[in-house]
C-alpha cells in the first residue's frame, strides 16, 4: 500500500466524487456523509506520509514512476519531499473542514458541491506530487474546472463575471507555461523535472522560459499586477470555495516557482530576482493600503491574502539574492524556510478568516463592514475566534502568522536593509487593517437590529474554527516539527540555487 500511497491520496478523493454525485440531490444527507467519509479517509491516508517520509533525508521520496505515454517518454511520476508533505497535509485538513463547514449552508445541489470539492482536493494533491512536468501541468489546469463550477454555481450575485475572469486569467498564464514546457521537452526529450533541472540552457532561453513560468505562477499566487482576479473570485465564491482558494490553491503558484523556476532557470531567476522582490514589496505595502479602505470584509481579507503571499514570493527570491549574489547560504535557507512556513500558516489563517466571514454571512447575508458592529455582544464564542485569527493575520507573536514573516524579514535584512524596511511595513499596515476590521465588526454598540438576533456559533462551526485555531496556535508556539519536516528539503532547494547553468 505504501508503494502507492501518493496515487492513493490523489485518486481516493477523485473516485469518492463519483458515489457522492450518484447519491444525487434526492439524498443530500447521504451525499454529505459520503463526502465527509472520503475526506476523512484521505486525511488518514495522508497521515501515513509522516512515518513514511524520512525528514532527515530530504530529497524526493515515495517515488512512483510508470511510463504513461511510451512514444513521447511521458511518465506518470510522483514523489514528495518535505515541502510537498506539508502542503498535502494542509490540503487534506482543509478538505475536511470545508465539507463540515458547508454542511447545511449549501442547500442547492449539495451532492454536486461536495463532489466538486473532492475532485478539487485530489487534483491539488496531484499538483504537489507530480515530478513529471506534463503531469504537473495536467493537474495544474484540471484544478480550474471544479473551481470554475464552485464559484459559478454557488457563488454570489456577480459570480459569472468573477468565475470567467478567474478561469481565463489563470488559463492565460498557464498556456505560456505549456509552450515553455514544450520547448524544454524539445531540448531534453523528457518532462522529468530532474532532467530538466540538469538541462543546460543559454541565458536567452532561460529568460524567455523564466517569464513564461513567472506569468503562469504569478497569476496563480497572485502577484501584483496580475492579482485582480483574486478579490473578485473571493468575493463571489461560496465560503468553502474561498477557503480552498486561499488556503491551498494560491500555494500552487509559489510551489510551482519552487519546482520550476528555481531548478530549471536559476540564472534568469537570479538575474530577475530584483523584479520579483520589487513586485512582492509592492504587494506587501501597496496592497496592504488597498486592504485598508475595503468595505467588504471578504475583499479586505482577499487583499490581505495578496499581501501575505507577497511575503512568500519575497522569501523565495530573497534566497536567490542571498545565495547567488551575496553567497550567504545560511541566511538564504532562513528566507526560504520562512517562505515555506508562511505558506502553511497563511493556509490556516486565511482559511479561518474566510470561514469566519462565512459564518457571519450565513446569519446576516451581507459582507459589508458597516452592516455589523457589536457582534461580540451576541456571539462571544465567535468573537473569541475572530480576534484570535485577526491577531494571527497581523502576525502577532505566538501565532503562526508571526513565525514565517519574522524569518523572511530577518533574511531580507541581510540582503538589504531597505527591503526589510518595506517588508516590515506589513506588520504595521496588517495590524491597522485587521484591527480596524475587528473594531468595526466586533466591538462597539449594536446598531443594527439584525445583529442583535444573531446566534452564536453552533457545534459544527465551533469544530471548524477550533481546528483552525489549534493549528494556528500550535504552529505559532511550536513551529519546530514543521520546520524539521521541511528542513532538509529546503536545504536541498537552496543548494540547487547555487548551480550555475551558464
Amino acid at each position: 500500500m505504501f508503494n502507492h500511497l501518493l496515487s492513493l491520496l490523489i485518486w481516493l478523493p477523485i473516485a469518492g466524487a463519483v458515489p457522492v454525485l450518484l447519491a444525487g440531490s434526492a439524498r443530500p444527507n447521504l451525499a454529505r456523509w459520503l463526502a465527509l467519509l472520503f475526506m476523512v479517509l484521505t486525511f488518514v491516508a495522508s497521515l501515513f506520509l509522516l512515518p513514511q517520509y524520512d525528514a532527515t533525508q530530504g530529497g524526493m521520496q515515495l517515488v512512483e514512476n510508470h511510463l504513461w505515454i511510451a512514444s513521447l517518454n511521458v511518465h506518470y511520476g510522483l514523489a514528495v519531499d518535505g515541502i510537498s508533505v506539508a502542503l498535502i497535509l494542509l490540503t487534506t485538513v482543509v478538505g475536511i473542514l470545508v465539507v463540515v463547514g458547508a454542511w447545511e449552508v449549501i442547500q442547492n445541489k449539495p451532492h454536486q458541491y461536495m463532489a466538486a470539492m473532492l475532485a478539487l482536493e485530489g487534483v491539488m494533491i496531484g499538483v504537489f506530487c507530480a515530478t513529471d512536468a506534463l503531469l504537473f501541468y495536467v493537474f495544474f489546469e484540471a484544478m480550474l474546472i471544479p473551481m470554475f463550477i464552485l464559484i459559478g454555481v454557488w457563488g454570489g450575485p456577480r459570480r459569472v463575471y468573477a468565475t470567467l475572469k478567474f478561469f481565463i486569467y489563470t488559463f492565460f498564464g498557464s498556456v505560456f507555461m505549456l509552450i515553455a514546457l514544450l520547448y524544454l521537452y524539445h531540448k531534453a526529450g523528457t518532462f522529468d523535472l530532474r532532467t530538466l533541472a540538469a538541462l543546460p540552457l543559454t541565458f536567452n532561453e532561460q529568460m524567455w522560459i523564466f517569464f513564461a513560468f513567472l506569468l503562469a505562477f504569478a497569476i496563480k499566487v497572485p502577484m501584483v499586477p496580475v492579482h485582480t482576479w483574486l478579490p473578485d473570485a473571493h468575493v463571489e465564491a461560496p465560503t468553502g470555495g474561498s477557503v480552498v482558494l486561499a488556503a491551498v490553491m494560491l500555494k500552487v503558484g509559489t510551489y510551482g516557482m519552487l519546482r520550476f523556476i528555481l531548478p530549471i532557470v536559476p540564472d534568469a531567476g537570479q538575474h530577475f530576482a530584483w523584479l520579483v522582490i520589487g513586485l512582492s514589496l509592492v504587494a506587501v505595502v501597496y496592497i496592504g493600503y488597498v486592504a485598508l479602505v475595503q468595505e467588504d470584509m471578504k475583499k479586505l481579507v482577499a487583499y490581505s491574502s495578496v499581501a501575505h503571499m507577497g511575503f512568500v514570493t519575497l522569501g523565495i527570491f530573497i534566497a536567490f539574492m542571498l545565495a547567488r549574489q551575496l553567497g550567504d547560504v545560511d541566511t538564504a535557507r532562513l528566507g526560504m524556510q520562512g517562505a515555506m512556513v508562511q505558506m502553511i500558516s497563511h493556509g490556516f489563517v486565511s482559511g479561518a478568516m474566510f470561514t469566519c466571514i462565512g459564518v457571519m454571512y450565513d446569519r446576516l447575508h451581507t459582507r459589508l463592514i458597516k452592516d455589523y458592529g457589536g457582534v461580540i455582544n451576541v456571539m462571544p464564542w465567535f468573537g473569541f475566534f475572530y480576534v484570535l485569527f485577526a491577531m494571527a493575520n497581523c502576525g502577532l507573536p505566538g501565532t503562526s502568522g508571526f513565525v514565517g514573516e519574522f524569518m523572511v524579514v530577518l533574511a531580507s535584512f541581510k540582503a538589504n536593509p531597505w527591503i526589510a524596511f518595506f517588508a516590515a511595513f506589513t506588520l504595521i499596515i496588517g495590524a491597522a487593517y485587521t484591527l480596524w476590521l475587528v473594531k468595526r465588526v466586533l466591538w462597539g454598540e449594536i446598531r443594527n437590529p439584525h445583529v442583535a438576533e444573531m446566534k452564536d456559533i453552533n457545534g459544527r462551526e465551533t469544530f471548524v474554527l477550533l481546528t483552525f485555531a489549534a493549528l494556528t496556535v500550535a504552529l505559532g508556539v511550536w513551529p519546530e516539527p514543521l520546520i524539521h519536516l521541511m528542513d532538509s528539503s529546503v536545504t536541498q532547494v537552496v543548494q540547487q540555487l547555487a548551480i550555475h547553468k551558464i
Partner: protein
Amino acid sequence: MPTLNDILILLPEFYLVAVACLLLLLDAFMKPEQRGTLHWISIVVLLVAAYMVVAGQPDVSVTAFGGMFVRDQVSEILKVFALLCTVLVLVYARPYLQDRRQFIGEFYTLILFAVIGVMLLVSAGSLVMVYLGLELLTLSSYALVALNRDSSLSSEAAIKYFVLGALSSGMLLYGMSMVYGATGTLDLAQLHVAVTQSAMPHLLVFGLVFMLVGIAFKLGAAPFHMWIPDVYQGASTPVTTFIASTSKLAAFGMAWRLLETGLGGLSQHWQPMLAAIAVLSMAIGNLVAIVQTNLKRMLAYSTISHMGYLLVGLVSAGPEGYSAAMFYAISYALMSTVSFGVILALARAGFECEEIADLKGLNQRSPWFAALMALALFSLAGVPPLFGFYAKYLVLQAAIDAHLLWLAIVGAVFAIVGLYYYLHVVKVMYFDKPEEGGADQPQSDGSLRVVLSINALALLVLGVYWGPLLGWCRHSFGLG
C-alpha cells in the same frame, strides 16, 4: 483487368457499395413504419465494414488497380474512425429525424455513399481517385444538406455549399491539371518522385497553390471558410454532425495524400502558405465565434479554428506533425459528435435547441446532458485532462519540433481566446436560470443516451489513456 487480389483489397468498399444499393431498393418496397429496420441495418452494416477494415489491416501498404487505390495504415485508421463517427451520427439522428418526418431511406443511402466517398478519398493513390472520392463525398453532402426540403434555410445553405463546393472542386481540378502538365503523371507515388525532377517548377508551384485552395476549402480553413457557418446552421443537425465529424477526417486524409505522398518534395513551398492559412483560421474562427448567439454557428466557427490547429500539425511537415494532425482530426471528430449529439438529444418536435440561450439552466433540468456537453466543451477548449488538450498539445509540440515556435505561440494565444466562448456556453448551462421554452429533459430514446454517454466519457478516458491511440497514429506514419 482487375485481379481477384484488387477486389479483395477493396472488399470493405465493394461491400458498402453493394449494401447501399440494396438499401435503396429495400427502401422503395418499405412501408414508412418499417423504416426503423433500415436504421438498424445501416448501423450494423457500418460496424461490419469497420470490422472488415480492421481485420484486413495490412502491415505494409498495398495497392490495387495499378496504384489507384492504396491501403495503408493511415487510411485504415481514418476509415475506422470515419465509420465509427458515422455510426454515432446515425444513432444520434434517429429520434430527431423521426420527430421531423425526415426518417426516410434517402438519408441512409446518401450517408452510406458519402462514407464510401470518404473511404475512397483517404485511400487514393492517384489524383483521379482523390477527385472521385471527393466528389462522391461532397455530392452526397450537398444532397444531405438539401434534404430538409421545407426549410428555406436548408435550401439556401445547400445552394451556397454547392456553388462554393463546385468552385473549389474546379480549383482543385485546375491545380491538378497543372501539376499533371508539369510532371506528366497522375499517380501520387510517381508524382512524389517526379516533383523533384520536374523541368517546370513554376507551373508546379502554380498548380500547388490551386490545390491548396481546394484543400483549404474542404477543411473549412480560412479564408475559404465562408460556407461552414451557413451550412452548419442551415443543414438539419444530423447532417451537420456528419459534416463536422466524418468529413473532417476525410479532409485531413485528402490533405495528407496530396501534400505529403504527392507533393512532399514541394514542402518548402506549401509550408509557409499552410502556416498562413492556419494562423488565419485560428484567428478568424476564434474571434468570430465569440459574437455568435446561435450554437450551431458558434460551433461552426470553432470548427474553423480547430482546422487551423490541425493545419499547424500539417505545417510541421514530417511524420511527427502528420501523426499529431491525424490525432487532432480524430479527437475533433469525437468531440464534435458529442457536442452536436447533445444538441440532437435536446431537440424535440418543433424545438431545435440551436440558440445558446436555449441551454439556459440546463444543469437544473437535465444535469447529465449538461455534464456531457460541458465535457465536450472543455475538451474542445483544450483543458486538461480531456482528450482535446492532448490533441492541441501534440500539434503545438510538432510545431516547436519543426522550429516553428512562433506558430506554437500564436496557437496558444488563440486557445485562450477560444476558451472564452466555450466557457460562455458552460456558463449558460450551469449558472443561468432556466427559461420557459428552453431545452428540457430530453425525450430521446435509450440507445442515444447510452451511446452519447459513452462517446462523451471517452473524451475523459482518452484524456488519461491516450497512449495507445497516439501510438497507433505514430506507428502508421512509421514512428516507433
